[in-house]
């Protein structure tokens, strides 16, 4: 069994208005040294696969097909083997 922790974010070229609002509001709270805010999505998937390579290939497909819109988002994931 493998557990994947998947992070989906807007590509750097895409302006994220939610992150801009959070940054602006942090400034209003006095947190004026916050230079940058990134808002993304986080997923955890546990799956049965025969090898780490097979698990990676499958998660890439899942992200490309569904979890990320590759037109405007990019993704990365951490994969760990977990007890069966």
């Amino acid at each position: 069994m493998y557990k994947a922790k998947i992070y989906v974010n807007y590509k750097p070229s895409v302006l994220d208005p939610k992150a801009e609002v959070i940054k602006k509001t942090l400034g209003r709270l006095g947190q004026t040294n916050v230079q940058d805010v990134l808002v993304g999505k986080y997923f955890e998937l546990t799956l049965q696969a025969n090898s780490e390579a097979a698990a990676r290939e499958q998660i890439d497909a899942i992200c490309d097909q569904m979890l990320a819109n590759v037109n405007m988002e990019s993704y990365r994931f951490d994969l760990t083997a977990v007890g069966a």
Partner: protein
Amino acid sequence: MKAAVLSFPGSNCDEDLLWAVETVCGQAATMVPADHTDLTGYDLVLVPGGFSYGDYLRSGAIAKFAPVMTALQTFAAAGGYVLGICNGFQILTEAGLLPGALQWNRSLQFICEPEPLIVANANTAFSTAYTSGQRIVLPIAHGEGNYYADPDTLATLEANGQVVFRYAHNPNGSANDIAGLTNAQGNVLGMMPHPERAVEALLGGTDGLGVFRSLIEATKGASDRVAN
């Protein structure tokens, strides 16, 4: 013209489209639920606005996996006319039938207003009832209508004349003021404004009728070609 109006769980403009095509324009229209797998025999497929599948994950991201979408891919690939409005536009970009993506409005506000538009290209199957440069007003009602595409894609869209409608006063941050665009083949159009909500003077205007009249003309031509 024989039109199919797709209906996903959470669609809320499907009845309006049916009304516009059937009652106002006097054409045949059928509601087709999302679990149907066949779209043969239709001249036009309409993908309505709303919040399909609750807009979970992203707008349109779940709808693209509905059974009827496989049939829609086949229908579009064969040159059938497809019109996606609002959430329908979002679904078409998610499904890869149109380039780019729709992200949150720059203001983060849901905007529900009559919006002035410029007809950028009146030589498409969806816009021949207008003239290029014509100013029309259609209602918009969306939170995620901010059109995004990378610079290369935008350049291609412009070079090919794929931009059909532009905002006169960009309300949501859309790249190149894009309110509606077609695919490269010209048989699939997605637009954020709602032409089906502007087909009767009683409801505030009839500027949306041109989209339906253009399609009636375009599909007449298609039937003639088949007959010959």
